[in-house]
Structure formats: C-alpha cells, structure tokens
C-alpha cells in the first residue's frame, strides 16, 4: 500500500506545481491587462487587476481538497 500512497503523493505534488504555474500565468496576464486599461482610460486599473480572483480562489480551494483528500482516502481505505 505504501507504493500506492507514494504514487498518489507524487501525482498530487505534480498537480500542485501545475496549478501554481497556471495561476501565476493568469495573474501575469491579468496584471498586463490592468496596465493596458489604466494607460487607456487614465483610471486606476484596480478592478481589472482583481478580475478573476473568485475563479482563482475556487481553483485553489479545489486543488487543496484534491491534494489532501485523495491520499487520505487511499490511506483510510487501506
């Protein structure tokens, strides 16, 4: 069963890295857009920069549940 838990943990670590990379790229592009909106509209681009925050939170939350939940489920079942 140890092999199963180790396999599951490696998948979760890879998943965590993937999630971080996707979120970081999204934030980078969102900030670039904010700069674009600000230069064009002379407003503060706070709103544009914050857009999509709820999505990121949901993504992060689900990722956390998966990362903790799956190895736990496998461990409890064994």
């Amino acid at each position, binding site marked *: 069963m140890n092999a199963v838990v180790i396999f599951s943990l490696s998948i979760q670590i890879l998943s965590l890295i993937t999630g971080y*990379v996707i979120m970081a790229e999204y934030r980078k*592009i969102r900030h*670039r*857009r904010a700069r674009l909106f600000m*230069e064009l509209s002379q407003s503060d681009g706070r709103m544009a920069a914050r*857009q999509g925050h709820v999505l990121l939170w949901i993504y992060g939350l689900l990722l956390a549940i*998966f990362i903790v939940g799956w190895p736990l489920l496998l461990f409890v079942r064994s």
Partner: protein
Amino acid sequence: MKTSLLERLPWKFRKAMPEFEADERLLKVLHTHWMQFAPLLLVIFPLSLIIGLLVAGLTLPASSLLGTTSLLLSMVVSVLTLHWFFHLILSISLNDILITDRRILFLSSKLWLRDNMHEILNRRINAVEVSKKGVLQNMLDYGELWFDTGGSESQDRTQIVPYVPHPYHWEKQISDVIARIKRAE
C-alpha cells in the same frame, strides 16, 4: 508615500503593449460572448468516468488490486479534469475586445500556449462586416466582426474578432467612429 498600482506593476509588461497616443480615449471594453464557455459542458464525460471509477474502487474490497487501480485511475482523471477545466475557463476569461478612438485591440490568450494581440488601426479600416452563422448565433445574438483594411480577406483570421456580443450594434458604433475620423481628415 502610497504608490499607484501602475507603478507597482512589473516593468516587463510595458514591452508587450502598443504605443498609445496621449489623447487616445478608451470607448468600450467588450468581453466576448458567454457561448465561448460551451466546451466546458464536456466536463460531464470525465465527471461520469470519475464517479464510476470511484464507486467501483470503494465497493470492491480494500485488498483487491482492481479496487486500488480504480481509485488511482479516478484520482488521475479527476486531477487532469480539474486542471483542464480551470485552464480553459481562465483562458477564455482573458479574451477581451478594446475599442478606442484610434484602434481596436482583440486580446486572446490560452495560458502558456498562446498570447495574441491583434491591433487594427481605425484609420486603416475601410468597412466593418458582421457575420452571424447558424441558429445559435442568431438566437443568442453573437457573431464575428470582420475588418476590411484593404487587401485583407474575410478568411484572414487576424482581421476577424469572434464571439462579439450584439455584433450589429458594435458594427454601427465602430463605423460611426471611422466616419468621424474620415470627416476630420
């Protein structure tokens, strides 16, 4: 002293931006039509697979190899589905159309795979055409805008902005801006 958000953003973003004129005015920021999110409905297939594998894994005895394999497969599919789903939803939410009194910017991204910015100068536009194809586009009022810049073809994807909500309304607005520019010249 409190710094503005503009000053705090990393300088490297400056490189990827067009040069705006000092008196350039933002007329409208359009988000592409929600029908773009339709492919997300495909999530139902991996979800049913995950549920099937999970039920099989939990009902079989803990010592059975099939049960463990089902659970591991269910885990892998669920993780892949989670990343696919959010990659798609975040990428689509980054598609924007900016209309200024000098240019039209169509920004589209697919995280890590594509980062496009099509810039069409208003003074170069000869005509704006609308294309609405199929029942869905007509029912839900969205379509494509094609900017004829002289010599461009309607098949040229760089001159086409897809998933524009209320395309006839925006065609009129853009045509009015172009007419004003041409009168001023």
